[in-house]
């Protein structure tokens, strides 16, 4: 049922995108065909798409995890930045062999994201500060921390707005994968994303921690009644959510890229929200939603190059698709009506939400 909601959202998005294309004089079917070709038509392109999807998977998971406990982590960009910064700094300074360095770099990114998310979590728990506001502020603090640390200590010799390139020993990129995928950006990050997804599912469904967090998210009053420490859980949920965003920073800055740029807020942090919405906050769904987003982003350029439409229109088309995809909540609310629309010709036997029996 939840999948149906997401599928309908995506289809609606494409219909809206198609109308836009028609209105700018292009054939939508050709356009969308190029879009998918651009994302998937060769091994390299498929792998680039997946590589682009990896940070999205992790920020999507991060947002999903916080959502499950009733918190809105809009601080993923900042957590990515700090996670990426710590990882980069360690990679540039540690000078250890790869088997030691790589785990340390991974751990550094996790710690960075955790610390950055713990602040809004703590403020929420202790002083009931709205986490959305504090997360946004933390994003900008991160933005400038990265700016100052990199431009003062780790500036690239060639480009002043970027950091030095990390040694290959600290990168998630491996020669084997790069060769195998014919020079794509794919790297070990995909394994990190898969492991993280499995861990999130495990925590949410199998552990006491997950039980407590979901209870707080669904109904904090009942959770409190059941003896669950709501405040502690808010901090913990943000910390874990932050760890996931920190990992997203790692896969982006030490995998997809090999350094950091200053003065840029990573859009993957915000896109993670849309990914989580499209996936209806189901961890496995996040993986697929992220890949879908990545196809749109990587395929857009090729569609654009092949079609007589300016990039602004192409951007608008993709934004429209994303917009509709992210409004799945709306679709869910109107699902009954949609079903009636599809089942109108023959009175259907299987209507009704199946949940409402009788409330008194």
């Amino acid at each position: 049922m939840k999948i149906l909601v997401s599928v309908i959202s995506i289809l609606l998005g494409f219909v809206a995108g198609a109308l836009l294309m028609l209105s700018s004089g292009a054939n939508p079917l050709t356009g969308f065909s190029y879009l998918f070709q651009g994302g998937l038509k060769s091994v390299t392109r498929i792998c680039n798409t997946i590589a682009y999807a990896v940070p999205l998977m992790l920020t999507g998971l991060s947002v999903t995890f916080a959502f499950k406990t009733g918190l809105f982590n809009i601080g993923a960009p900042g957590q990515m930045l700090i996670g990426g910064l710590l990882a980069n700094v360690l990679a540039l300074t540690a000078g250890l062999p790869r088997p030691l360095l790589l785990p340390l770099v991974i751990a550094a990114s996790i710690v960075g994201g955790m610390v950055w998310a713990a602040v809004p979590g703590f403020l929420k728990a202790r002083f009931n500060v709205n986490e959305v506001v504090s997360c946004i502020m933390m994003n900008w603090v991160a933005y400038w921390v990265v700016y100052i640390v990199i431009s003062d200590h780790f500036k690239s010799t060639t480009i002043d707005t970027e950091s030095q390139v990390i040694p290959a020993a600290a990168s998630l990129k491996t020669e084997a994968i790069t060769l195998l995928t014919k020079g794509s950006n794919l790297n070990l990050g995909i394994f990190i994303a898969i492991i993280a997804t499995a861990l999130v599912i495990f925590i949410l469904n199998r552990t006491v921690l997950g039980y407590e967090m979901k209870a707080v998210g669904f109904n904090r009053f009942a959770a409190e009644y059941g003896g669950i420490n709501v405040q502690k859980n808010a901090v913990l949920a943000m910390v874990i959510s932050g760890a996931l965003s920190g990992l997203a920073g790692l896969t982006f800055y030490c995998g997809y890229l090999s350094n950091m740029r200053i003065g840029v807020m990573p859009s993957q942090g915000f896109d993670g929200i849309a990914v989580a919405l499209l996936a209806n906050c189901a961890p496995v769904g996040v993986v697929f939603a992220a890949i879908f987003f990545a196809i749109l982003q990587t395929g857009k350029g090729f569609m654009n190059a092949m079609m007589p439409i300016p990039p602004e229109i192409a951007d608008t088309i993709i934004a429209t698709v994303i917009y509709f995809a992210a409004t799945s909540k709306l679709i869910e609310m109107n699902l009954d009506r949609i079903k009636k629309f599809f089942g109108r010709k023959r009175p259907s036997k299987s209507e009704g939400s199946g949940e409402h029996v009788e409330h008194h």
Partner: protein
Amino acid sequence: MAEYVVEMRDIVKDFPGLRANDHITLQLKKGEVHALLGENGAGKSTLMSILFGLYRADEGQILVKGKEVQITNPNVANELGIGMVHQHFKLVHNFTVTENIVLGLEPRRGVTMDLKSAAARIAELSRQYGLEVDPNAKIEEISVGMQQRVEILKMLYRDAEVLIFDEPTAVLTPMEIRELIAIMKNLISEGKSIILITHKLKEIKEVADRCTIIRRGRHIATVDVAATSEQEMAEMMVGHEISFVIDKEEKTPGDPVLQIEDLSVKNSHGSLGLRDFSLTVRGGAIVGIAGVDGNGQSELVEAITGLRRAEKGKILLNGEEITHETIARRIRRGVSHIPEDRQKRGLVLDYTVEENMVLEVYGQRPFSKHGLLNKRAIHDYAARIADDYDVRAGEGVLSRAGSLSGGNQQKAIIGREIEKQPVLLIAVQPTRGLDVGSIEYIHKRIVEQRNLGRAVLLVSLELDEVLQLSDRIVAINAGQVIGEVLAKDTDENEVGLMMAGVGKDGGGVER
């Protein structure tokens, strides 16, 4: 002219795992009050939702004035002259009565709304049916009883011929109930027909002409109310004999389990909701707190359970002080709590029944070990509670708690709290909004706990319930103990006076 204004024939409605309506027939004569009686979850609301166009029946026919109709949505129902007064009012609070009533069919004059003529018509309708509603009052400024009348006016304004009342008295005071019954009689005399959904037998007896009884989705009987006793109707509803008398053995109270000394607690407005309150509950005894709503009952209960901080005073459980312990610690010590609001506090509605059954014990063995949940143990435990306490749900313990009817939700909570083998059981409004069958069952279970030697603190706004169950009754007024009596030595009048603030023996408390 057909005999019936509305006729529902052999209605069948299936939900996944549950047949909510199984060939139910309901025939409403013109000018009658027809009661629809059934336990929670019997299928009353489903049947009415079908008539009102919210659901569609899988089988069966609906006839309005002898003609078969397809009611696909509430608008069709409105056009057919069927109106519903919902249990939870659907009103915009900062709108006036008139604005609320015309919402959806705003009268226009050019581009502006013509509220004046609408208000005049509402005033006229209000007079005609004796509703006494001021068309220009704001909803937030009028009482709940008045709001209900606005809902009725809404239907009349839309020329409804058939009015469905869904549990209309649940939210009303006794005075308002009497007025509502008078209004219903006015409506009938003006030629309207009424379907009354309820499980309160007294009201049926008072106002209804005929009564259709359903049980577990099936049509049991349609009876003439005047010729049928309350007892008979109740038994048809629950399917077995009912005793209104609670079987309570004599018992000598044991040692004090809960001792409260000079407890003061702030309410949510920041002033003291409970002041220098002292109380003792002994093992094997039920102490009932009698009082009008909002006189400190919630503050008392929340302070004992740890949901609210005590400003001053002591709470002792089995002689040990727990005043400043965490909620979790108190639960472990054996405090069980049937909360006042089962949907807000008692259950995580989005969790399954089985997940809810371990809400307080998930962290203990065998339900978890080393931080990992043992799903098997949780399932078995929950299934046993559901079985023992007759919790009925479409998909068993895997059903979402929110999908259960109110009675089943409450039974689940009571099962959970009793299965913890508590030292102290706090039951707040344990039968609120439940039907006769469920009430009887829950009362039995609570008395059973007392008979097992456990301490029970009962807080209820229903004086009957307090009188029936308690061994001792403590009357509370403005956050203070106003009097304390033995249940067997008192009556409704004495306790009622204390509740109103008139203390027994000048308010002295005997221990």
